[in-house]
């Protein structure tokens, strides 16, 4: 069984923004995409996803439109705004810094004074 990780709010926002970089998507699509891209590791809880989407929309980082799906169902589709793109860049560089730092902590260069 694949172990699943619960996402922190800030991380989820970042991942949602990142996911929308490849084009507009509805909520279900975003959840599926995150799951697929993370090899089923990241399971996005709807109780976190929808609040995150509505929060990002309120911050004007994403915008939403109603479209009609192929099954003639009304679906709400989100897309990245210019402000969202800018925010994503900021988050990304922060993320890179952080992951490099964590990687450094986890795999320190072989130290001379190891006992």
């Amino acid at each position, binding site marked *: 069984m694949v172990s699943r990780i619960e996402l922190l709010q800030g991380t989820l926002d970042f991942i949602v923004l990142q996911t929308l970089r490849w084009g507009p998507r*509805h*909520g*279900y*699509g975003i*959840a*599926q995409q995150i799951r697929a891209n993370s090899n089923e590791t990241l399971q996005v*809880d*709807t*109780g976190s996803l*929808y*609040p995150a*989407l*509505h*929060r990002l929309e*309120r911050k004007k980082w994403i915008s939403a439109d*109603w479209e009609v*799906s192929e*099954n003639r*169902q*009304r*679906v*709400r589709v989100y897309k990245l705004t210019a402000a969202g793109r800018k925010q994503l860049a900021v988050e990304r560089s922060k993320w890179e810094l952080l992951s490099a730092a964590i990687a450094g902590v986890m795999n320190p260069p072989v130290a001379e004074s190891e006992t």
Partner: protein
Amino acid sequence: MSRWFWKKRAQRDLDLNDEIRAHFDMAVRDRMARGESQRDAEDAARREFGNVGHVKEVTREMWGGVWLERFRQDLRFAVRSLRRSPTFTIVASLTLALGIGVNTAMFAVVHGVLLRPLPFVDSGRLFVPSYKANAFGPAAAMFDDHYARLERDTSIFDRVASYGTSSLTVTGLGDPLRVSATRATSQFFSVLGARPALGRLFDESEATKDGGTSVILSDALWRRRFNADRSVIGGSVVLEGVSRTVVGVMPASFDFPAGTDVWQPWRVIADPKTNVSFIPVIGRLKPGLSPQLAQQMFAAYASHLPVVDGPPRAGLVAALIPLKTVMVGDVRTPLLIFSGAIGFVLLIACANVANLLLMRVASRDREMAMRAALGAGRWRLIRQLLTETLVLTSVGAAAGIGVALATLRLLLVLAPQNMLPRADGIRIDPWTVAFTAGLTIVTAIVCGAIPAMHASEQRLRASLAAGARTVTGGRERLRSLLVGGEIALALVLLTGAGLLVRSFERMRAVDLGFDSRNALAVTVDLPSARYNSAADMREFDARVLANLNAIPGVESAGAINWFPLGKGGISGNLFAEDGREVPSGYNVNALSVSPGYFRAMGIHVERGRAFTDDDRTTGARVAILSHSVAEKFWPGGNAIGKRVASSEKPDPSDWLTVVGVVNDVKGRATSSRAAADYVPLAQTNFPFFLRRVTFVVRRHEAAATTPVAVATTRILREADPNLAFETVASMTDLIGRTTAEPRFQSRMLLTFSLAALLLAMIGVYGVMSYAITQRRQEISVRIALGAAPGEIIAMVLRRTTMLVVPGIVVGLGASYALTRVLNRFLFQITATDPTTFAFVAGILVVVALAASAMPARRAGKVDPVEALR
């Protein structure tokens, strides 16, 4: 905004439903595409999706403005849930209505009297320059000669004015009428920034030393006496027998000094050589001058004023006192004490309501658990419960306004006359309503916070299973704590009330030096226009006295110029021909009395004799000393036959021979000035000493009061139909008036503390009877195992004692710290009087045990069979 808001909100809700629906449908479709059956796919999708309600709830929270929606929801729910338990709602909101109502009333009083600005233009710049000195009491006044200089000096004040009030008689239109007349210097109205409603203000040229010949009427007098006739301007009014021209009418809003009916133009002519008096002064600060700087300037100014003859001026402290402070001076502290006391009552009421809420919450554990399971967060539950409390306090506050109106009416009727200055401004106004609204919210938080936090905590432990025994330990401790707090607060109030009541009793027990039983008194002022010589007034006095003595049932009648229970008086130095030297500040009340006065008053002649009809104008000049004066000059009691005078170097004819010594008399228990020298009215030649006269009539014990009072009134009417005088009053009533304030204060505090006691009793009863309901099982087991009902009752009473004792200990400590605010009002008793403390603590224990008697009896009757169920 609201309709638009709710419409938009409803649309967004529908959208969110669609969005979630679409998500769910897509998930199902994907699963079916992967080969699952529709049913399996739907089940799996639903599991995966989780709690739809919760998802919607947390998503909505991101929208902003959600609190408003929540509040509406909570409100609707609160109303519904309160309706379901009407008894609880009625009891709790009535308790709150009382608590909030009396506090609202108190605020209306405090706001009307203390906080509201004075009704004068820029009233913050009005100050009273005054000299404070202990010998002259708290009256804010300054020497007239210094005032005369201040009038010419403009370095501190833009302008200053002085005034004086007296009681005069208006005649000529119907019955003679006593009016309150204020003589005011020419800048008086402009200092206060007042304009007349009709006519004009006084001209500088109209002002004289004794009140000129023109008058300005108050709105009230104008309406009452002149039917609001505008043509009154230029007309005349007979004041003290002299016709004066009406030049103006003031608007109703102008009432300074309070209760003035007419103003007269006045000029202060001070001659420091002959007669120096203290007069009240008001001044408007010079524009741009800060009050602090003005203070310093006035202190410096006063210290440079010349010191001439007259009363000793050493030890006087010059200060500028804000006019408002002077006007509300005496009443400030009692009002603040009452406010504090009444705040305590509300706190106790809150504790009771909190206890009720805790009980209610206990029965709602399952509901709370259910709500938590359905996705309500802890904060959400707290908010919900607080909203419920807010609805409760709002209902209480709405009813409380009615309580406040009733309380105010009662208060204004019961408060002794003149105790509350500016009483006309006491009403329920927007400020008061705002205060009540604020108080409502605070009360809701105070009452509801503990139960709400507690309930939301319990939800985790509470089980949905119906038969589960509830966990009550924590809650019981909380409830005991609340009741302990109530006991402590009630104890503080009771101690304060107990001290005031005891002090009042001691005040009443003081021997005033005369016998007030079976005696009536009436005071008359003889107008100078018709009684311009001493002989006229002496003749009037003698004629009235002769008739009074002839009333059937009258034992004796007498007259005095400055009655001990009345207002005013003159004190001066007294010198003995051969007596010991007395300190220069030693002042003695100088009184003139008729021969029958001592008998009519029941004053005891200790040595020598009382005055007789032979002590006439032509006879030898005589005096009677009060006990303490005689002892001061001739210790050992040999004053008879000695000679005294009121000036240091008297003319030979000014010496008075002491013919008697009487016991000391004082008008009120708290006053210390009992020293007096009496001379016969018949030998009093200075008209000023004869203007006011009080007749004292003592009836035989067997005679009825009313006929004597009626006869007295008739005799005065017949003696001078143009004389206005107050109702003939019994001396007991007059003494009652002098103690009206302490009596009112002790009764107020007693009422508050009894209310507090009642509430605390209800609290104890509630906690104990609830505890017993919770422990029926345990009690029945005990009884089944052989405990006698008596033992069970004893156990309950022991528990009550344990509940109450910590509260009493805390309360005694708090009382010890707080009752000193009463110090100023206590007479012959200390603020930490151990007897009062012990007595009050005892009362509380007894009352608490009485409150738990019923629950205890019920506990003793528990059926042991219950143990089996």
